[in-house]
């Protein structure tokens, strides 16, 4: 198991390095430059470029950037004067992560429960209900979902606050809006997987041993059926976290989304790089956790990863 984890960690580090390199050079290929505002004279712009080190050869800048990164320094923003990228991430990320994690937990727990319930009550009203939830969830985009939730729970029934992010009741609507799609896909996969596993020979073996239905379901069926859900967790984390950008602007949450979008339109090189690398790191770590989880749940993967 230790070998398996070490191998995964090394792969993660290589992935990150490639990501940083590719994004660094790609950003420079974008049309336009950071200091092109009409208010700046040519002289000031030149000074600014010198200040940020743009006069040096590109490969020098690259090595400088890597060195700074290794010290945990993402550099200064080129648009927000006197703010470091670290500072902006530190401001926005806790909010983004908060919504994202709440949504993920909602989606995974309810998704799995719905999937199990639907499969166990196949063909009944419960199954029908879960299938409807799954269809709605996958077909309604999260910004429409967000607006609908705001309208009904916030305005029509006045149960929950419409926007801002000041306490637990403020987190409910955005987390639900964000979770809905993932919840639907998790429940769909879990249901299909449960129905597939129940056909397996080892379920019959378990039955022939005289085990109770409850034990067969929990120990033999769910344990094996949960595998595909774990597989999809990695990409799901990515989609939920990028999904927060839209939800953040609908619910006026002071997260990272706004800065990310702005940095691209402003050609704010250090911000784009910083945020992308930061998100990249976050996703690589999430995938790493999923890989390790997979090894714990499925003994066959451990051997495969020798």
């Amino acid at each position: 198991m230790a070998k398996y984890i070490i191998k995964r960690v090394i792969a993660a580090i290589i992935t990150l390095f490639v990501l940083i390199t590719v994004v660094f050079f790609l950003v420079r290929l974008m049309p336009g430059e950071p200091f092109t505002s009409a208010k700046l004279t040519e002289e000031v712009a030149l000074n600014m470029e010198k200040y940020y080190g743009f006069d040096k050869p590109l490969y020098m800048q690259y090595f400088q950037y890597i060195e700074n990164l290794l010290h945990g320094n993402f550099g200064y923003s080129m648009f927000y004067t006197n703010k470091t990228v670290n500072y902006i991430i530190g401001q926005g990320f806790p909010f983004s992560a908060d919504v994202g994690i709440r949504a993920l937990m909602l989606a995974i727990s309810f998704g799995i429960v719905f999937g199990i319930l639907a499969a166990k009550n196949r063909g009944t009203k419960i199954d029908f209900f879960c299938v409807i939830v799954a269809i709605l969830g996958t077909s309604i985009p999260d910004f429409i979902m967000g607006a609908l939730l705001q309208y009904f729970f916030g305005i029509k029934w006045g149960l929950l606050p419409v926007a801002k992010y000041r306490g637990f009741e403020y987190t409910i609507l955005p987390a639900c809006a964000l979770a809905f799609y993932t919840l639907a896909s998790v429940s769909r996969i879990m249901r299909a997987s449960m129905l597939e596993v129940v056909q397996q020979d080892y379920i019959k073996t378990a039955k022939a041993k005289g085990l109770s239905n409850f034990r067969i379901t929990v120990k033999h069926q769910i344990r094996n059926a949960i595998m595909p859900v774990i597989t999809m967790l990695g990409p799901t984390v990515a989609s939920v976290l990028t999904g927060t950008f839209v939800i953040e602007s609908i619910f006026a949450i002071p997260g990272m989304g706004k800065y990310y979008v702005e940095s691209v339109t402003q050609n704010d090189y250090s911000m784009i790089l910083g945020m992308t690398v930061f998100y990249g790191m976050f996703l690589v770590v999430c995938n790493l956790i999923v890989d390790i989880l997979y090894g714990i749940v499925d003994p066959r993967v451990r051997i495969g990863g020798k």
Partner: protein
Amino acid sequence: MSEKILELNNVVFSFKTYAGLVHAVRGVSFEVRKGEILGIVGESGCGKSVTAQSILRLNPEPPGFFEGGEILFKGQDIIKMNNKQLRNIRGKDIGFIFQDPMTSLNPTMRVGEQIEEVFIGTGTPKAEVRLKALNIMRLVGINDPERRFMQYPHELSGGMKQRIMIAIALVSRPSLIICDEPTTSLDVTIEAQILDLLLELREKLGTSIIMITHDLGVIARLCDRVVVMYGGKVAEQGTSEDIFFDTAHPYTSGLLKSIARLDMERNQVLTPIEGTPPDLFAPPKGCPFAARCEYAMSVCCEYEPSKTTLTEEHSTYCWLQHDLAPEVNLIVEKREA
């Protein structure tokens, strides 16, 4: 005659499907006695597996259901049992060994735990359960059971997995083991080992065994008595001797003619049974084998043959046994002098 531990009386089991009822088992009767090995032989789709699984009620119900008959195990009717009573018999009094050991073990659970699971709900102390599991693993020929106990199915070979399956079936010392083609998916050397193991276990533990197979070689090697099934019905039953040397049903002699033998001439062609088994959605009116039978008479297609008892053990369901039927030689094997 030693005591009966299992008796099937006219069991009828069908499946409801969208296309209609599938009559998988159509009035099967036989008995299993203490300490004997009973073979059930027949080609694919003849209802032998469904019959075997219906003894432990392992067929999915619904869509499957009993249309009639009784399955008496130690005097109690299994068809009338509730879930709790069934659970007390499954794995404890009757063990079941499945066809494919590759897929019959849970891939995410240690094999030892899968053996121990049989005792869940019996209140046996943990240490005792562990001891029993390790002992049974040793008994079925697993070396170093302590190490194997902690392994997962994918770490074991096919033969080893089937030994684990046998260990699961045997661990609570059941009085009957049902083997549903236990060696079909194994290669012949492993097959021989597993069959020897079953014989040895019968000697040691006195367990009765139902052996389901389509391999007459397995029957010859193992079984005391044989039930030949065709089209969801019993065609012929008797001791192994009766079936091989006093064959009294054209289907049985067809089976015997179609196997390759060592003493055959080099160019001799095997004789297959022409045609396909009957459609169990709409079983034929008369004898199920009539359409493929080389001796079929007009009565065979109209009326079901009734049971003809030849000796105390040997009986057959065939119109050829009728007084008015022509004399036909069905015997394929010659008794050695």
